[in-house]
C-alpha cells in the first residue's frame, strides 16, 4: 500500500496511458508519444529548475518570465545579427545569441538568490519581484510582439529528428534525404527528436548533481533543516544563491529551446503559468513545499502525468480546458496522499 502511495503518480500515469489507448484513436503510437515528449520539453526543464528550489523549501515564481525574457532576448540578438549580414553566418549569430542569453539568464537568479539568502526576503516575494522585472524587460525588448524573421535553420534543428525512414524506401540520418522537400515529410517515419537528446542530457546532469554530489546533499540538507545545515558547516547563504542561479539558468535554457522550437522569440503571457504548472508537477512528483523532499525523476513523472492527461483528453475528443481542472484535482490528490502517508521517503 505504501509502495503504491509513494509512487501514485507513476501508477496514475500508467493508468491514464492504458485508458487513453482505448479511448483515443492514435494515442498509442510512437509519433504521438514523441510529440508529447517534444511538447513537454519546456515543462520538464521548468519542473527540474523548480525541483532544486523546492527541495530547499523555497519557491521560484520568476522562471516562466525568465524563460520569456531569454527567448525574446535571444530572438532579438539573432535577428539583429542575422539582418546585419556582413559575413555573419546564421550559425554564428545563433551561437552569439545563445551565449549572451545564457549569461544574462544568470542575473535574475543571482538577484533573487542574494535577496533571499543575504537579506532574508521571502522567496515568494523576491522571485515575484523578478517576475515583474523580467516580464517588463522582455515586453520592452520585443514591444509586445513576438520576435520574428529569424534564420530558418532554427526550427530545422529545434524540430529535427535523428532518423528518417521512408517505408520501403531506405533510411537517412539527421535530415530528410537530399532533394526531398519539407512538403513530403509526412511520408517519412521520424524517430528520436533532437529535443530528446537535449533534454535527456540536461536531465542526466541535473539528476547526477542532485543525487550523487555534495551540491545535491547540501540542497537536501538545507531543505530538511536549515539550522542543522548551518551547524554542519554548510555555507547555506552561498548555496541558496547558487540554487536560484541554477534555476534561472535552466529557465534561460528553456527560453533558448523555445526559440529553436518555434522559430521566434516569445514573451511569456500571463495565462501561461509555467512556474505554477512546474510547481504542480514537482509536488505531484512527490516533493513537499516544506522542503527536504523531491527528485528529478519524480518531477519528470509529474510533468508527463499532466502532459499525457492533456494529450489523451485532446485525442479522445475532450475539450482541452479540462486540463486545468485535472491539474487542480491531481494536486489535491498529491497533497492528501502526502498527508495520509507522512513517513514516506
Amino acid at each position, binding site marked *: 500500500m505504501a509502495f503504491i502511495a509513494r509512487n501514485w503518480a507513476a501508477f496514475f500515469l500508467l493508468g491514464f496511458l492504458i485508458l487513453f489507448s482505448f479511448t483515443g484513436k492514435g494515442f498509442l503510437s510512437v509519433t504521438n508519444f514523441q510529440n508529447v515528449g517534444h511538447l513537454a520539453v519546456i515543462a520538464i526543464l521548468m519542473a527540474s529548475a523548480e525541483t532544486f528550489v523546492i527541495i530547499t523549501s523555497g519557491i521560484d515564481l520568476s522562471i516562466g518570465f525568465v524563460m520569456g525574457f531569454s527567448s525574446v532576448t535571444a530572438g532579438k540578438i539573432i535577428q539583429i545579427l542575422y539582418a546585419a549580414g556582413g559575413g555573419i553566418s546564421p550559425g554564428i549569430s545563433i551561437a552569439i545569441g545563445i551565449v549572451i542569453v545564457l549569461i544574462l539568464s544568470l542575473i535574475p537568479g543571482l538577484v533573487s538568490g542574494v535577496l533571499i539568502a543575504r537579506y532574508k526576503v521571502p522567496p515568494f*516575494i523576491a522571485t515575484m519581484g523578478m517576475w*515583474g522585472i523580467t516580464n*517588463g524587460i522582455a*515586453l520592452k525588448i520585443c514591444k509586445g510582439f513576438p520576435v520574428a524573421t529569424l534564420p530558418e535553420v532554427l526550427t530545422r534543428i529545434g524540430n529535427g529528428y535523428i532518423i528518417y525512414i521512408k517505408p520501403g524506401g531506405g533510411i537517412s540520418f539527421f535530415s530528410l534525404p537530399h532533394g526531398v522537400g519539407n512538403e513530403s515529410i509526412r511520408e517519412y517515419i521520424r524517430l528520436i527528436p533532437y529535443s530528446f537528446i537535449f533534454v535527456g542530457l540536461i536531465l542526466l546532469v541535473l539528476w547526477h548533481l542532485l543525487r550523487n554530489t555534495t551540491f545535491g546533499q547540501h540542497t537536501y540538507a538545507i531543505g530538511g533543516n536549515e539550522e542543522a545545515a548551518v551547524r554542519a558547516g554548510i555555507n547555506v547563504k552561498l548555496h541558496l544563491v547558487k540554487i536560484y542561479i541554477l534555476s534561472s539558468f535552466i529557465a534561460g535554457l528553456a527560453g533558448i529551446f523555445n526559440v529553436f522550437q518555434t522559430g521566434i522569440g516569445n514573451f511569456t503571457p500571463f495565462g501561461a503559468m509555467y512556474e505554477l504548472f512546474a510547481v504542480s508537477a514537482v509536488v505531484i512528483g512527490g516533493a513537499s513545499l516544506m522542503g527536504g523532499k523531491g527528485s528529478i525523476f519524480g518531477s519528470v513523472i509529474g510533468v508527463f502525468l499532466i502532459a499525457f492527461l492533456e494529450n489523451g483528453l485532446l485525442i479522445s475528443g475532450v475539450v482541452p480546458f479540462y486540463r*486545468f*481542472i485535472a491539474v487542480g484535482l491531481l494536486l*489535491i490528490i498529491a*497533497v492528501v496522499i502526502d*498527508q495520509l502517508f507522512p513517513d514516506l521517503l
Partner: protein
Amino acid sequence: MDLGRSWALIFLIVELVFFSLAAKGFLSLRVFQMVFFFGVTVFLLGVAELFVIITGGIDLSVGYIVGFASIISSRFVALFLQTGMSTLPALLLGIFLTLAIGLLPGLVSGLLIAKLRVPPFIATFSMLGITHGVSELLILNGAVNMPKLSTLFGNGYFLYWAPGPGLSLFVRPEIPRGGFILELIPNIVVVAFVVIGILSFMLKRTVFGQYTYAIGGNVDAAIRSGINVSRHTVKIYMLSSFLASLTGIIYVMMYVKGKGDAGASNLLDSIAAVVIGGASLYGGKGTVWRTILGALIIAILETGLRVMGIPTFDKYIIVGIILISAVLIDKIFPDKTYMDTKE
C-alpha cells in the same frame, strides 16, 4: 521620523509630484478619478489578499475567480432575462447567485488548508485550475453580453452636475451635445469603498479581525486561547473568494462581457499592494488602509504611465522593484510596533 513606516506615503507623494510635472494633463479631476476607477480591481483583490496574508497564507486563485464570476454572472443574468424577468430583478438575482457560488472556491481551498493541512499555495492553485477550467468551458460558445443597465451602472457616476438640470444622483442628465457636465465619483468606486470600509472595520474593531491577527501572529497561541482556528481559516478564504467574485461582477459591469482570465494579471499587483502596505508574508501584520495605499501607488503608476504615453510594460518592472524594495526597507527599518514572532 520613522522612515520605515512612512516610506510608502512618501513614495506616493513623490510619485504624484513626478507625474504632475512629467505627464501633461495628469493633474486633473478626470485622471484622478480614472486612477480610482481602474484601481478598483487592485483595491478589492488587495484587501482579499490582505486577510489571507495576515493569517500567514496566500491566495493564488483570486485572479481566476474574478474571471469565473464575470462569466457566471453574465450567464445567470442572460438566463433570467430569457425567462421573461425584467432587467433589474434579473440583474440583482444574478449578482446574488454569483456571490453565493463565488464562496465555493474559497470554501474548498479553506477546507483543504484547514482540515487537510494542504499548503495554501497548492490548495489555492488547484482552485485556480478548477475555476479557470470551468470558466473556459462555460464560454466555449462565446460570452454573453450584460444588459445595458449594468453597463450604465458600471461606467456611470454617483453624482452629476450640469448648469441646466443641476444636481442629479446616478442618472446622467440630458444635456446638449458638447455641453458642460461635471461627473463625480464613479459608481463602482463607491461600491468598492463601502465594502472596503466595512472590511476595515471588521479587521480593526471586531472579534473576527482579532482572530485573524491572532492566527497569523502565532497559531499555537491562537489555538490555546480557544480560537477555532480551522473554522476561522475557512472563513478567511471564503471572504477572499467572495471579494474576488465581487470584483468579477464589477469587471463585467465595466466591460459588458465576461472573460476567463479577467483578473489573471492582477495577482502580482494585489500581493504587491499588500506587501508595499507593510504586511508580512509570515503573517500577523497589515491593515486595510495601508493596503489601499499600496494599491494606490500601483494604480497611480499605471495611470501616470498611460497618460505619459509610455507602454505599461514599464509598470511591471517598477512594481517588481517596489515590491522588493518594500521588503528590504522593512528589514532595514524594522517596525517596532509589531512583534515579529516568526522571523
